[in-house]
């Protein structure tokens, strides 16, 4: 309970900072827009292959791009934490009774708010470009949920790295190591039937794939298999809880270093 209310206070701090820089939401839309528009054109004919689950590639691509946006934005959470370390804000918070997990999850809450805005714009654009989402509002809700869980997971890794290694390079390195390979070793951009065998195998253990499978199943299928959706959501919940706990545990490592 304390953890939750503290998380909302911390989220309030980050949200106010974001409201003061609204152009940031627009600027961070540039990359997913490029992915959505460019890839939809580049791989347009993939949708003509037999066994492809949707008529248009852009409908298949849109949830993947939104998931990737969630991963990218949260994987920079460690940088904000390093700024707080340098400015002294973190030390002030740590000498207060603030719940340690709230320092991580507060940022996730704020990221969820900005992601919601970005996701609505991206989805609207995809529909305008001809995508049909059979799953409707419920499907979009599932996409939102898995984006939050996946984002929180990557946020936890990023902040844990920042607390343990305390160098910007380590956070940048971790992002480069995890985000794009995570996307391409999953079914976010290409269905499993069209992936090389080894990638399809790796994807089964990849949280990005869990999120992609759940979102595609709920959003693109006319008759979603809810067993598949709930199973992947469960795995993602375990993943994000584990990384947030690891991240919170990394405060110990920071404490030893100062």
């Amino acid at each position: 309970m304390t953890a939750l209310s503290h998380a909302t206070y911390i989220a309030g701090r980050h949200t106010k900072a974001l409201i003061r820089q609204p152009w940031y939401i627009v600027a961070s839309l540039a990359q997913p827009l490029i992915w959505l528009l460019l890839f939809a054109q580049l791989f347009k004919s993939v949708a003509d292959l037999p066994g492809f689950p949707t008529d248009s590639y852009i409908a298949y691509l849109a949830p993947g791009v939104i998931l990737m946006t969630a991963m990218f934005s949260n994987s920079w959470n460690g940088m904000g934490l390093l700024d707080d370390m340098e400015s002294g804000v973190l030390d002030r918070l740590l000498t207060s009774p603030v719940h340690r997990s709230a320092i991580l999850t507060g940022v996730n809450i704020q990221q969820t708010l900005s992601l919601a805005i970005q996701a609505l714009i991206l989805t609207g654009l995809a529909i305008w470009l001809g995508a049909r989402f059979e799953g409707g509002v419920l499907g979009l809700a599932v996409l939102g949920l898995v984006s939050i869980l996946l984002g929180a997971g990557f946020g936890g890794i990023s902040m844990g790295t920042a607390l343990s290694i305390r160098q910007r390079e380590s956070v940048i390195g971790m992002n480069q190591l995890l985000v794009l390979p995570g996307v391409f070793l999953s079914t976010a951009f290409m269905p499993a039937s069209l992936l090389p065998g080894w990638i399809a195998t790796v994807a089964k253990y990849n949280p990005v794939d869990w999120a992609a499978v759940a979102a595609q199943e709920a959003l693109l299928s006319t008759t979603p298999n809810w067993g598949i959706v709930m199973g992947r959501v469960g795995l993602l919940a375990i993943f994000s809880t584990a990384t947030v706990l690891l991240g919170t545990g990394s405060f110990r490592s920071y404490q030893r270093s100062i």
Partner: protein
Amino acid sequence: MALATSGLRKTYPGDVVALDGLDLTVPAGTIFGLLGPNGAGKSTAVKILTTLSRPDHGTAAVAGLDVLSQPEEVRRSIGYVAQKSGADVQATGSENLVLQARVHGIERAEARRRSHQLMDRFGLVETAGRLVKTWSGGMKRRLDIALALMHSPKVVFLDEPTTGLDPEVRADLWDEIRRLRDLENITVLLTTHYLEEADQLTDRLAIIDHGRLVVEGTPSELKDDMKGDAVHIELASFEASSSAIALLEGSLALREMVADGKNLHARATRGAEAVPQVLGALSAAGIAVQAVTVNRPSLDDVFLRHTGRRFTKTETEIES
């Protein structure tokens, strides 16, 4: 005792010994100073007492609470002003204060009321709604102290609070720190490398060097320990000095008398009390005096005596 540490030891990677068995006790309701050169271990001691850092060995208690086994309770009882400002510069002053109050479990309305009260007290009302990044250094420092006071703590830690501030701002801050003690009975532990600050502001102080307590006491006690003040008497003539020594030798007022031309150098436990006696005796004997000066021993002398080094030599950036 508001604070007590016993045998605190802390080593950083690379075998850098920050604390080497520090024992400290700080009485409640006092301004207590930790004085030492950079790297002496002052900040490390404060970080352990504020639960930021953990010692390798030893124990520390704040307001009767153990920092290792009751960190939550310790955090509720303390305010901490770090060397670096802890304020969020991308937020306004009020937002900083209200967030601080909220994580201390204070309701929103009360948090706002207290935020306004502290802004008023520290002369920050007019800038309260502006982003902290636009504030001056002195204003940020006052906000840092307001942040530390938001939840009415029992003990406040100030880590080099006046470093880099203008002399007037520093003097204002000293008054503010005295008010914490006088009006709210808060125990203040402050670290400093300014001798003048340790001398004028603290009730008691501990000199720390190489992670150990060197000597502890009130500033006057420490200086009195230096066998008293230096007294210099300039006589009217060379011939007078030997008769002056002969005259004063038996009196208890002066010790360690040395003649140097027509000057007499000596020590007195309390210079101001010795001078009238000495002048009276010399005048009665018809020995004319041209000038008398009394120099109080400084904390620099105290540091020299206990560490074998001059404090000002160990600090390149020292200013008075």
